[in-house]
């Protein structure tokens, strides 16, 4: 099939949606399909051969913060040109409810359209009612995909009706094997964390508090933490005697991230909320790391209700400490969880996920002409 994918965010900025599209495009190409991705991009940077740049994204206030989005007549014309040249069998727009390329693509296209929603978005009734142009663009979507239960609500809020649940994929082969970082996990044991430290929803402070509880009985236990944020601020939350046992790596390369996942005895996902899928947790599963995670719905789902990883009461450092201690003291259980995690994450591998997406494409394309421009 000839597949046209619309990306609403800058290609060269790291982000969940962009990574999803990148991995999906590559999995589809691997399956033999022809794929073109249109995305805002800085034309000075090198782009993969399947990406068509649509100009730069512009910083603008949206949804309570500043977003970099692509909008306006010039952008709309670029999309029209891309559609006209592409002759796609299907248009796949990501995050169509965000005021950027994907919404514009739905607006100018005529033909089979599939859209994937990545985040839960609420809009006021007034907004939807007063903007027929928004509703009609979204109502043209034939096939709806949501990456999580929470994201599904976006479709319901905006245009009514339901969506197929196809979670984010993980390129599992990239995570399976890696050499641990030098000196890790170390004789005393190690607990790992990966994520944006400064976002309280990521739950680092819960882990730090749990470490305080664990540390007295385990003199060699250390924390290995990576991700961007103010390391000093977080390190200072620990009592002085424990500070050199928490190692902050800052932002790490993809390769080092995978090595980190293989450098710990227990990987911790202490998120307190806001996760629609938990890609980091899935990556840890793909590395076969024994996992302790908060019992938010996203983790309950992906860890098969505690079968592929230990769950603890969200936000409760004492419960986290108990769960981590159980695992640290039980190598057999860790091995069991590791295998269960590898097994569970196979369902999320991109080869499987891309296949599910293609099924949706095939459903909406039945008996229809290729995608063209709406008059």
């Amino acid at each position: 099939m000839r597949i046209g994918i619309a990306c609403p965010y800058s290609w060269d900025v790291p982000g969940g949606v962009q990574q999803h599209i990148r991995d999906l495009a590559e999995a589809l190409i691997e399956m033999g399909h022809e794929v073109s991705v249109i995305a805002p991009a800085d034309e000075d940077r090198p782009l993969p051969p399947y990406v068509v740049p649509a100009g730069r994204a512009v910083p603008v206030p949206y949804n309570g913060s500043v977003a970099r989005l692509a909008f306006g007549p010039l952008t709309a014309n670029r999309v029209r040109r891309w559609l006209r040249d592409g002759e796609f069998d299907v248009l796949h727009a990501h995050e169509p409810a965000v005021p950027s390329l994907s919404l514009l693509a739905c607006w100018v296209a005529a033909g089979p359209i599939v859209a994937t929603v990545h985040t839960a978005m609420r809009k006021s009734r007034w907004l939807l009612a007063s903007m027929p142009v928004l509703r009609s663009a979204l109502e043209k979507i034939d096939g709806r995909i949501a990456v999580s239960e929470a994201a599904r609500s976006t479709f319901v809020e905006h245009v009514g009706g339901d969506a197929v649940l196809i979670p984010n994929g993980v390129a599992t082969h990239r995570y399976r094997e890696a050499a641990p970082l030098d000196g890790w996990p170390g004789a005393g044991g190690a607990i790992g964390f990966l994520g944006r430290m400064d976002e309280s929803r990521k739950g680092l402070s819960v882990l730090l508090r749990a470490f305080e509880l664990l540390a007295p009985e385990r003199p060699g236990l250390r924390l290995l933490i990576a991700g961007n944020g103010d390391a000093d601020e977080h390190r200072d939350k620990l009592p002085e005697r424990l500070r050199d046992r928490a190692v902050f790596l800052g932002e790490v390369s993809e390769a080092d991230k995978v090595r980190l996942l293989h450098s710990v005895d227990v990987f911790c996902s202490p998120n307190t909320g806001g996760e629609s899928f938990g890609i980091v947790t899935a990556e840890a599963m793909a590395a076969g790391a024994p996992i302790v995670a908060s019992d938010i719905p996203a983790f309950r789902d992906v860890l098969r209700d505690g079968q592929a990883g230990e769950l603890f009461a969200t936000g409760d450092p004492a419960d986290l400490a108990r769960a981590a201690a159980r695992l640290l003291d039980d190598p057999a259980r860790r091995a069991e969880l590791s295998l269960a995690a590898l097994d569970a994450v196979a369902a999320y591998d991109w080869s499987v996920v891309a296949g599910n997406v293609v099924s949706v494409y095939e459903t909406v394309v039945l008996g229809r002409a290729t995608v063209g421009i709406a008059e």
Partner: protein
Amino acid sequence: MTWTIIVAAVLVLVLWSFWVSWRASRLDRLHNRVEAARAALDLALVRRASAAADLASSGQLDPATSLLLADAVGRARQAEPPERDLAESDLTRALRATLGAAGVRTELAESDPEGAAELLGAVEKASQQVFIARKFYNDLAGRTIDARRRPLARTLHLSGRARAPEFFEMDDALTHGEG
């Protein structure tokens, strides 16, 4: 001799009390004017939001641009006082970004010359009124604060129960070089 002193003292006292009374009523007038200026600023902000909303729901702009404007308008309308200036600044930025996007004005002019001109004109006029109203308000607020701080006003509590006005700081420059 004593009589002269007494009379002089009484005279001074009377003159002084006239003066204090004049100062008090001047302060009173300032407070009233600053309240009126604040009401005018609020009205200008509401008008601007309304003009932007009309533009957003006109269907003349692409859906992404319309949505950006509508989102900013919604937030500005719903903002409570502590966040109000931030929300209104965000509306200014959204207006700058959307109306400043390449090709917007030409496309509007081509699709519906009269309607577009009216909508755009309303937004520009309303933005200008916000700029002016805010300038006047902040100017009065500054003068009122200065007057309240004078030693006489402080010691005699001439402001009474009137609250000190706060400056309204926001980004209100539109693309035409204002501010």
